[in-house]
């Protein structure tokens, strides 16, 4: 039932509205709303009950194993939430003067320092509000860099064909053309194709390493060499940073700019779609272009650098300073992990992924790159099942829900047919991984003995399989009173 269907027009919640009697006479009629908006009029309890019940219809990290590849669904420490929501932080107005902000600014400064170290970059801006905005900032900096050098013929951004959709979309937002570079059979960038593609028109290349194929790009040094010698810069999509935290620094691989998804690697919650935070780190040559604001420390006092202090900045990405509350959560997490903890993240994320891969292969599942080690994630292809049994990746995914597991990422990267991109993360216990593998094996048996059961899954969720085609056709995008 929708909240609107519980609404009654005279219901009101006076304990939530101001008691003060206030007129509207000082606002002339021409500016005034004539009919009230259709907001639900429910009691406080009705609202609490409605949203509590709705919440129970979700899978989440706090309730389910959620091995969604590329998304790093790891445990989100509750302390990060509690501490980021301390009244002193929640009530700080973004225009609070610096003398009333030193506590908050200390956290931001420390976080900048930590992120510099893990990325091997020389400066960090916390401004971007998610990975894609970090990508935008990065590519905009690359453009600003070329522009500053009056190197204006560079019109193209390169990206592997397996790249995440935000990479080409970002290049377009920065008015670059995107040229896709093919992947070889081992999952590495096709070096010959890359060599053929680079040139004076190359502004840069966007890469994830480990790539979205779940393997480490081994010739990254060669790639850096090729792109740099053509005058292009290297952009690192940090979505997969969890795989290499403390092991390799993107700066050492030759990258000029990186964004991090703090909502992945630094375990801030995904919130059912956001918010995230996508800080960017840069090598010295891009430093002048970093988005503002930045926090600096002089004599134990923190202050902001803004547009006027940073004349070459690509500018501002949000009204204030980005997703401050998310940054606080990431800071708490980073301090809880500490140096050793960061190393362990990559160790155990990688152990879990390789263990899963090994066991799934033993059970007869086909790895997309059987000769490669898994990184923090890996790809299984179900093309044989799809062809021989008519049971495809989506069917496996939906049936996994019945077994109490969120599905891995499906059909991404597009490059691998019928693919399942599986990322267990370091916070899952062996027992849960084993249970997932058992479920996969059971589903495989079902696919053989009772394929309809799998194809019509899920069977035990609040709804059965939904009709996406109808959704797009009907465009029922809002409730209206007529219903």
């Amino acid at each position, binding site marked *: 039932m*929708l*909240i*609107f269907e519980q609404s009654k027009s005279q219901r*009101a919640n006076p304990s939530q509205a*101001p008691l003060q009697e*206030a007129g509207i006479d000082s606002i*002339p009629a021409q*500016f005034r709303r004539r009919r009230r908006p259709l907001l639900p*009029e*429910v009691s406080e309890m009705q609202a609490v009950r409605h949203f509590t019940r709705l919440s129970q219809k*979700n*899978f989440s*990290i*706090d309730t389910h194993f959620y091995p969604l590849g590329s998304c790093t669904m790891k445990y989100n420490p509750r*302390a990060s*939430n509690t501490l980021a*929501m*301390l009244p002193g*932080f929640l*009530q700080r*107005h973004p*225009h609070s003067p610096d003398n009333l*902000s030193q*506590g908050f600014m200390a956290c931001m400064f420390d976080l900048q320092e930590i992120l510099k170290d893990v990325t091997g970059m020389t400066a960090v801006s916390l401004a971007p509000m998610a990975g894609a905005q970090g990508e935008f900032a990065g590519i905009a900096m690359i453009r600003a860099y070329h522009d500053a050098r009056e190197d204006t013929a560079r019109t193209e951004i390169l990206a592997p064909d397996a790249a995440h*959709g935000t990479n080409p*979309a970002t290049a*377009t*937002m920065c008015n670059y053309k995107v040229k896709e570079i093919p992947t070889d059979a081992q999952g590495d960038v096709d070096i010959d194709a890359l060599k053929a593609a680079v040139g004076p028109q190359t502004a840069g290349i966007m890469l994830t390493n480990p790539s979205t194929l779940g393997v*480490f790009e081994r010739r990254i040094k060669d790639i850096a060499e090729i792109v740099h010698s053509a005058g292009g810069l290297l952009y690192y999509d940090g979505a997969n940073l969890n795989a290499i935290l403390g092991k*390799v620094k993107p700066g*050492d691989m030759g990258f000029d700019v990186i964004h991090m998804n703090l909502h992945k690697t630094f375990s801030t919650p995904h*919130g*059912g779609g956001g*918010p995230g935070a996508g800080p960017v780190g840069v090598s010295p040559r891009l430093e002048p272009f970093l988005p503002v604001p930045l926090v600096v420390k002089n004599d134990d006092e923190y202050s902001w650098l803004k547009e006027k202090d940073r004349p070459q900045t690509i500018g501002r990405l949000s*009204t204030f*300073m980005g997703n*401050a509350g998310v940054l606080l959560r990431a800071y*708490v997490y980073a*301090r809880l992990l500490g140096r050793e903890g960061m190393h362990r993240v990559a160790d*155990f994320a990688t*152990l879990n992924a*390789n263990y899963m891969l090994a066991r799934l292969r033993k059970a007869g599942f086909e790895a997309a790159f059987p000769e490669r*080690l898994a990184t923090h994630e890996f790809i299984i292809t179900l093309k044989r099942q799809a062809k021989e049994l008519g049971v495809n990746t989506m069917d496996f995914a939906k049936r996994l829900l019945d077994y109490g597991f*969120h*599905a891995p990422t499906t059909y991404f990267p597009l490059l691998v047919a019928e693919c399942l991109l599986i990322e267990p993360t*370091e*916070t899952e216990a062996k027992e849960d991984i084993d249970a997932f593998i058992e479920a996969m094996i059971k589903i495989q048996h079902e696919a053989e003995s009772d394929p309809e059961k799998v194809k*019509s899954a899920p069977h035990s*969720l609040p*709804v*059965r*399989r*939904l*009709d996406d085609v109808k959704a797009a056709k*009907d*465009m*029922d*995008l*809002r*409730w209206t009173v007529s219903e």
Partner: protein
Amino acid sequence: MPFIPHTDDDVKTMLDAIGANSIEDLFAEIPAELRSEGLDSIPDGVNEMDISRLMRERADQDSRSLCFAGAGAYEHHIPAAVWELTTRGEFYTAYTPYQAEASQGTLQLLYEYQSMMASLTGMDVSNASLYDGASALAEAVLMAVRANRKSKSKRILTPRTVHPDYRRVANTIVHNQGIVLDELDFDRQQGVIDPASLPDDPGDVTALIIPQPNYFGALEDVDVLTDWAHAHGALVIAVVNPVSLAILTPPGEWGDSGADIVCGDGQPLGAPLSSGGPYFGFMCCRKAFVRQMPGRIIGRTTDLDGKSGYTLTLQAREQHIRRSKATSNICTNQGLLVTAATIYMSLLGAQGLERVALACHANTMKLLAALDETDGVTKLFDRPLFHEAVVQFDLPVADVMRALSVQGIIGGVSLADDYPELGNSILICATETKTDADIETYTASLKRIAMRLTANRCPVQPKM
């Protein structure tokens, strides 16, 4: 190990299954010369007790202040239920609802949100959020360029009464694509765009941005402006405060045919000030433009049994499908804030939100009157307003603000940098959270400070 459940036995069994000797072996494909030596500047891990103590100390340091600043971030009462529900693990730790059947909670909530926002703005459809108000304006500009197929100029008329940082952000994001944000000046007496100053023949204009209330809190002549834009083939992008819409004409009803795209910051709907974020950007539009919208959109559909359910829809607009041809690069949005906003609006209802808006208006009127009566302070514009206003000091604004802050009062936001022509002016705001006593505290402090500053023949450093 913090957050890692593996025992030594587990590790051994798992390595055996893999056929590896050590975890280190699993990194064999990483070229040795790339391996990093360590994370020298990262401190040792601490436990939750210690980080709690540190964070409490830091939060206490920025202790509560009496805040009359607005300028895009407003201190409202947030019902306790809002964040108690929003931070339930099932909302807080879910991903974007890619597996619809396992995400009906979030999806239905988003559908409800879209319904509320569409109704609040008077538009046909809403998306499921963008990053914040400023970046939503940038996206609206990009969308207008795509949607106004007749216009080729990529010229966006941008009044100086639009929040200066919104204009900056929009410029950061759109300028690479050759889009020009042409400034429109405002009337110095009224603090709004003077419709009479608009050219009869503006040339090819892609869109006109109309803020309501504008950055100064003043109400623009939205009907005239909308009709003017439409008459010249320009789309109208409305930038609005969602709480104000409880009492102000929704953009869908501006002029003869309403605004085309509506955006703004959802912060006033249940998001705490929180140093400026996370907030969320909202965007609504006419149905005709829905395929040009950026961001997630949720649709209602049916399942195999014909039962109602909710799912991400019109994904062909989005980066994961359309890649370089997508309507935007946005992926992760601000879902949790939308969760809070939906709960907030459900708890307040139309009546409650109206009372909030009216109380904000009334309190700002009171504050404005009280300041205007204070020696050395003048109200600047003569125009109906929502819940912000501009006042001018006789004294240097930076000194006054600093002196107030030492007393824990954030007196407003200085306009000195963005509007030097307005002299020593600040933008003030008193939401429903401010009492008469608070206003009295403010004016009393101000009087004392003014006396001191005048006596000392400023500038002077107040004693800390």
